[in-house]
């Protein structure tokens, strides 16, 4: 394929631009890592691209702190795990119902779930509801209200619809009951979309911040993102545990830990992109 001069020039500028843009995205991360690996004394020396004397001091400090890292981290892990299970359970089952094209009353159900998409209660009525349900300061407040999302329902439904009807039909002819069809045929075949949604939900639950601020007040129940923000913004001392001051390297080490689960999950998320699962379902 012959490329003319115009095309070559364009490519040159395009590739360069994208490379620079990519560096602009990566650079803040590098900066974060550098600070997190620096000695407290070096921080006052101004900007450094690489740490002059890399040290794990900041990380050691935070990992030995139950109050600052271990407890909130475990709390967030718990919320994420229970949230994902609940969300997948509710969404997968409901999507299966929605997937049956000619079910009597399906249109009514769809209208029923679409109305709240246009108009909702808002922050205060939702808060009042949680309060009236007695769920303030519990993890249920963080996992249940967000369990079902319309977008996810569509994705799972579309995926399930792409499974040939003939499979279920022949199973029915063989005498399989409806629940067997769901459990033994549809769900095993839907594992790709369930896994993809599960990953996205997991990231979402891990990153959850405002709901935790709104509904949790007990210090030992706080989730990681809440503690992280308190440390970044207020430069709190570690409180009861030690008199150590929270310096920049500690802040950045904590921020890195805040990203860690996402970074670990990211390659798997990427895999689903290249498989085009999400993309293909957008067609539907």
């Amino acid at each position: 394929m012959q490329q003319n001069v115009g095309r070559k020039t364009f490519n040159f500028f395009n590739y360069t631009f994208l490379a620079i843009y990519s560096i602009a995205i990566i650079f803040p991360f590098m900066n974060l890592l550098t600070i997190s690996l620096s000695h407290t004394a070096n921080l006052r020396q101004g900007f450094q691209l690489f740490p002059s004397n890399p040290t794990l001091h900041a990380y050691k400090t935070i990992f030995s702190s139950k109050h600052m890292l271990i407890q909130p981290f475990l709390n967030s892990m718990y919320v994420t795990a229970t949230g994902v299970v609940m969300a997948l359970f509710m969404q997968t089952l409901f999507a299966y119902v929605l997937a049956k094209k000619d079910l009597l009353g399906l249109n009514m159900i769809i209208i029923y779930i679409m109305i709240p998409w246009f108009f909702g209660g808002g922050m205060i009525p939702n808060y009042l509801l949680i309060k009236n349900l007695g769920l303030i300061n519990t993890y249920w407040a963080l996992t249940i209200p967000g369990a079902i999302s319309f977008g996810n329902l569509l994705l799972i439904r579309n995926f399930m619809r792409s499974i040939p009807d003939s499979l279920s039909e022949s199973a029915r002819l063989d005498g399989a009951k409806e629940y067997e069809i769901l459990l033994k045929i549809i769900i095993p075949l839907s594992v790709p979309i369930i896994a993809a949604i599960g990953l996205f939900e997991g990231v979402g639950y891990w990153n959850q911040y405002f709901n935790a601020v709104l509904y949790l007040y007990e210090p030992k129940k706080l989730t990681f993102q809440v503690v992280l923000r308190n440390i970044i913004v207020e430069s709190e001392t570690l409180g009861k545990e030690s008199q150590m001051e929270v310096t920049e390297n500690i802040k950045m080490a904590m921020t890195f830990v805040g990203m860690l689960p996402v970074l670990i999950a990211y390659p798997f998320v990427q895999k689903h992109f290249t498989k085009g699962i999400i993309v293909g379902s957008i067609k539907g």
Partner: protein
Amino acid sequence: MTIDKKLRQIKNEKLRYTMVYLYRWRFLYLLAVPAIVWYFIFKYLPIYGIKYAFTNYGKAPKISYIGFKNFERFLTLPDFTNVFMNTVKISLYQIIFSFPSTIILALLLNEVEKKIFKRTVQTILYLPHFLSWVVIAGIWFNLLSPSHGAVNALIKVFGGEQIYFWIEKGWFRSLIVLSGMWKNMGYGTIIYLAALSRADTELYDSSKVDGANRLRQTWHVTLPAIKPIIVITFIMSFSGILSIFEQIFVFMNNMVKEVAEVIDTYTYQMGIKKMDVGFATAVGLFKNVISLFLVLITNALAKWVTEESLF
């Protein structure tokens, strides 16, 4: 006889058909019950709570209805006007800058021929989208730090004074837009790239035969191919302009409050922190109604101008 055969037989006896049908598919209907209950509790019940917008809940020991007094109150409050304008300004800036940029970025990415390069760039660009705003705040506070941040270091190299970026009112809006783009622009290209990959290669080939160069091809083939996506994305972005929240919440501080306070942070402040529940509910209702209007109007306009719409 199997139940399906029976169903086909009694197709004309409407009532009996319905009863047998519901029994035949009872598994599915049972399966739907948890979700339906969930929707009722967590989506419909809060709508009922909107009634508090018309009460003095939080301001008086006994709750009683006060009609539209809450609405009168915030509509005449200069603080609220400021909050409303902040919300609109920040959101509009975000749309004006990031909407076209995302499309252009998608078009540029689409032109990359070397797959490895494209894949690598995409991997890098999508990452910030998956981080929480708290983490991003940590990163960006650090980046713009007066003492050891990269940006201020650069400024000092050119002989300038360090800027305390995050407490300067003049910088806040721009920083919100920039950090927002850093986070979401890469991921935003996905939906356009998907549409572009489905573009009809025949159209490209025939336009080449007609002598179109790459630029004309882009205008006449590429852009029309993604027109529906652009319209849908725009409708959704535009109708959400009043809803910007968590990003602001994380970056806000007392020094920049005047330009930073948006409708939802104001609702939080008044309703949760100050327990002025009726008033805050009224503000929330106001915002929801206007957002609904925006969706409908933007959708209608889009249909009228471009023949594409969300619904």
